[in-house]
């Protein structure tokens, strides 16, 4: 009675020009059925022009426990943002 269909994460491109965005997940035995199920589940009202399905097990995620340490190296590099620099008055096109 149990059903061990794997879990798939679904990404939908809403319109041409936008990137695919994660919309949710579903179960399906294979990629082809996952795509069809994703169409029926997540695009019943023309929400998308393109769908990706990815086996949930194939995703490697950063761990929330090491979130600070993991992203810390970016925190002290404010000079990566244009707002860090002082622009002398009167300079145009910069």
């Amino acid at each position: 009675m149990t059903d061990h269909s794997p879990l798939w994460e679904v990404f939908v491109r809403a319109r041409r020009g936008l990137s695919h965005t994660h919309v949710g997940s579903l179960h399906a035995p294979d990629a082809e059925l996952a795509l069809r199920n994703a169409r029926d589940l997540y695009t019943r009202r023309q929400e998308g022009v393109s769908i990706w399905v990815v086996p949930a097990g194939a995703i490697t995620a950063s761990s929330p426990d090491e979130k600070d340490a993991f992203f810390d190296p970016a925190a002290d590099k404010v000079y990566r943002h244009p707002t860090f620099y002082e622009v002398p008055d009167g300079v145009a096109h910069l």
Partner: protein
Amino acid sequence: MYGNDFSAPDGATDEAPGGLLGEVEAAEAELRAAAARGRRGGPAPDEDLAAYFAEVVDAEQKIEPRDWMPDAYRRTLIRQIAQHAHSEIIGMQPEGNWISRAPSLKRKAILLAKVQDEAGHGLYLYAAAETLGISRDELVQLLLDGRQKYSSIFNYPTLSWADVGAIGWLVDGAAIVNQVPLCRCSYGPYARAMIRVCKEESFHQRQGYEILHTLAHGTPAQQAMAQDAVDRWWYPSLAMFGPPDGDSTHSAQSMAWKIKRFSNDDLRQRFVDMCVQQAEILGLRIPDADLRWNDERQAYDYTQPDYDELMQVISGDGPCNRERMAHRRAAHADGSWVREAAAAYAAKRAEQREKVAA
């Protein structure tokens, strides 16, 4: 399951422009705003996790699947989201009962789309529950074993076509009043699923209202059918908001965790206040002789539903409990060969690909 913004065919709007659907939009905007100001990273290595969790919730930020959370918060969410998902799935039955007997092809196509939406909403919610570490198989089994509940309302029968209208207007209406605040729930995946559900539902209540409006302006027999449906669905719909605040077991903690935003009685009052004017435009009577405007409270006084009946239905003795569960179990068992065949086909295809690759 259900939802809508309560707009009526002839402009019977309920409240502020945008109505409930506007509130869904607002909840979504708030979610984006909270995400934008959420510069707080993960907890520091030596930080108290419970304090960190409380800080995130108090700051109206969302808790996400891999964050630390109290076990009781996780259990409460699993119970609530699962019960909600089961309600969507069982909720297909009373309406599905009328697909083959819908009075026109148009009505039939609409009802089919609505029932398909219920299935979709069940699946969004199961997926949200699974992010908390419970599997789909377990959730399905808990329902089939009767160890998790679904909304008591679906244990009432749909006796006439007008019941499909009454379900749309009253049951979907009550559900959306309940669900719109859930769009602001502190658990990210649930809030996002609810935004999706509430947005999609904007046609459900409207279609129900339109069915009743058409019948209520038809022949005397059609009017009587519409009134009969409202008479039967009014009190069970009021009971959907759960027991009165004094008797509600989970409410206070859920409010503190920002899973729930308003009390059962507050939501019930809100629903009654919305329905009165909508009923007038339908030309149908709400079956409550004591329903009247209370100027002091700026709200309608109304008769409470029979909570003993609610408890009886919840505990398994409603008019259709056994039928609903028997139908669900049979559908699951009858579908097992399809699941097995799909799995066998997927395994065969994978094997063939391996051979080609080798």
